[in-house]
């Protein structure tokens, strides 16, 4: 079926099947590859995007369920990495291989949208679903706190 998706403020008309996850539509059909595939079951957070400013796992979200909603991917966060969370990520030099980091950043933005000044425990709880295989967790935590200190996401 033909649906319209509003991604990073642009509207795309795409042909999808009913059960097609948003992740594959974004990656294969819209060709935005910053959103990553890793577990495919909503268990690792690599595919996290924002739907109406709430962090969601695109690999288990059917594309047809998010028509008429504002979808934001890592590419839509800022043009050149100037979003406060991206800036914090750069200042702390968080990534190692980098594969999970789009998902980590989008999830952190989702957290700060809801809670501009999370405690360490709240960060743990909110970021628990995002696996980093390289073990950058201490830096992820530091970057979320830095972004929060510098005034959150706005």
């Amino acid at each position, binding site marked *: 079926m033909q649906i319209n998706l509003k991604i990073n403020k642009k509207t795309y008309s795409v042909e999808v*099947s009913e*059960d*097609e*996850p948003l992740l*594959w539509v974004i*990656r*294969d*059909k819209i*060709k*935005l*590859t*910053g*959103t*990553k*595939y*890793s*577990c*495919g*079951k909503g*268990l*690792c957070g*690599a595919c996290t995007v924002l739907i109406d400013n709430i962090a969601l796992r695109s690999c288990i979200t059917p594309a047809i369920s998010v028509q008429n909603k504002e979808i934001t*991917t*890592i*590419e839509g*966060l*800022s043009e*050149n*990495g100037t979003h406060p969370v*991206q800036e914090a*990520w*750069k200042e702390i*030099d968080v*990534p*190692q*291989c*980098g*594969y*999970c*980091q*789009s998902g980590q*950043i989008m999830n952190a933005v989702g957290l700060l949208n809801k809670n501009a000044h999370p405690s360490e425990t709240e*960060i*743990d*709880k909110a*970021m*628990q*679903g*995002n*696996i*980093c*295989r*390289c*073990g*950058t*967790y*201490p*830096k*992820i*935590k530091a970057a979320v706190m830095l972004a929060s200190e510098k005034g959150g996401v706005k």
Partner: protein
Amino acid sequence: MKKRYTRRDFIKVSTLVTGGLIAGFHLPGCFDETKRSAAGNTVKNLLNEAVWTDVNVYVKIAQNNLITVIAPYPEIGQGVRTSLPMIIADELDADWNLVVVEQAVTDKEKYGSQFVGGSTALKRSYELLRKTGAAIREMLIKAAAETWKVPVNECKTENSFVIHKKSNKKLTYGELTEKAVKYKPSEEPKLKNPADFSVTGKAKKKVDLNDIVTGKLKFGLDTQIENMVCALVLRPPIFGTKLKTYNADKALAVDGVIDVFKMPEPTNDFDVHRGGLVVVAENSFSAIKGRNEIYVEWTEPENNIKSSAHLTEKFNSNLKKTGTVIKSVGNFKNAYKNSDIQIEATYELPFVAHTNNEPQNTTVVIKENSCEIWTPTQVPNYVRKLASQITGYDINQINVHVTAIGGGFGRRLEADYAAEAIYIAKQIKKPVKLFWTREDDFEFDFFRPAGIHKLKAGIKNGKIIAWDTHHTSTSILTFNNTNEKPWAYEIYPDNYPPILVPNLNMAYSDTDSNIAVASLRAPGHNSTSFADGSFTDEIAHKLGVDPIRLHLDLIGEPKKIPYHSHGGPELDTQRIKDVILAVKEKSDRKKDLPKGYGQGFAFHFTFGGYVAVLTDVYVSEKGKLSVKKITAVADIGRLINPAGAEEQISGGIIDGLNITLNAEITVKDGKIEQQNVDTYPMLRISDAPEIDVHFINTDAPVEGVGEMGLPPVAASVCNAVFDATGKRIRSLPVRKHDLSYS
């Protein structure tokens, strides 16, 4: 067990390729758009107007003084795209802010072996890269001296400028390059005094940082080629099985599925793929849906491992035998018999998966006169050779483009997934992206071998006088049909601490298995370190001495001992002593901890690196373990990028903690039981302890850094758990043990 496939020799020493004009190579560069020149111009703007002159295969310089440095090896998160160019930039005296980094083409003739593994990349390229930078610097000075008609010794370099000391005249490297390339580069240029290093030894951020946080960095799976199709493979469930019969009617009816066909059986000597069926589809999701609809039957395997319990039975039966003696010093039997105290313990380790965050994939386009491959690999030259063998094309017609890579950990030393993609492209004659699902990645991984270490020690007058190790595991080398020394990737005869015991016996028994195994970060060491580090702690407790004291007594007067495997040629016990004493000093070591709190120590020498760790834990009465803090002191010699070194040790520790607490692959009904991270728990952010890393002896020669942090973690955590609860953990992972106490 029957033959799997033969293994290539991928370890070759890098060859010097300084000098000469080499035709242009213009791969997409990675740079931080926010970096600026002294005049305030952004690198992005400078790149747009850059006109490049190739100096050699590692360096090109633009008229506007931008410098491109080639990153010769794959980046798997270990930081070599930043650290290796730093080495060249330093000797070149380049302005690091105006350096952009490009990934090298895959070409052994130009770059020597480009593989990354065994923490070797830095060590094996260090001298070559320094000489490369220094030789170009000399050429630039010559060009300036000739321009100014002054002697070369009146000229110096600084931040991509040549300066005439007397007159303070300046020319940029960009202005001098065209002239400089006419000079023959020196084979033995004068290298900097380490005190003058201007780029290395200082913390630098990753060159790909901006591309990562904006989602622009292209990993293998992100490859997009015009008219590309997607492919998945349905593989035989385990080694030793083959396709019996299948029906793809339902799969072919799935929207977007193009074709289903048989993968060629792996029959050639060079074959490393596993056979099965191929599903080709218009996109990834159709391929996944299509594959789910295939009806298939496989042949029954022979002599396979039926279950994890079955494998343990085999291990235990092998441990009743004597095994192949791989090291014998003094007389273990007599010394053991005559000792005052005899201690014996066994330590069991499961199969562990690599779980690269980016599942395996490769994109291939076979053209009339060339074959283009985009792949996340640790062995690009090997993939190139394999592609030549599969396609019949000359090696010079094969272009292997190394993409960004979502984690290596040893898994991408295997090229099975690249081979699949090349075979599929050859068959369908279309650009194809072969990808693996997470489930494929678990089921068809090459696991860290499972095994058991049986250790014995004899103590006389408070000293360890006898040590016996009998190790059995599912040998990596046997799995690869390299049978001469099946123990060589499993156990190291010169390892500390056994090497210091005067009466020593070490034996190995190979346990036959059809479960695929291969190297995982710190191969062999990630297993022996748990056994040796735990056992030493057990001995200390039995003797009632502080475990650190026991280590220092065992070391006694420091000395240098020959070390015959990777990481040699010697083991310096002074360096062991130094990291042990340093970790004691740096950590908050306490004698009387409150109930439930514990501290555990461990040291391990891996591939030339010395790392001692002290772990603080808390265990609740109900048995909930929290690892609070891990303090590490590492001696890995000179640090190229201290920020990178710190994060590699820290990341290795977290990887080690995951292996300690969580990781376990089991076999059930002859198959791998775990399919995804719901049944294979992974360390999460709330489990990550505070990590405090220190480096000492940073004037010593350069070693690698990727693997050294991992090995000591398991023993230190389990020793800390013992300290806290009195419970000794002799098998991993820890999560399977009841740690409750009252």
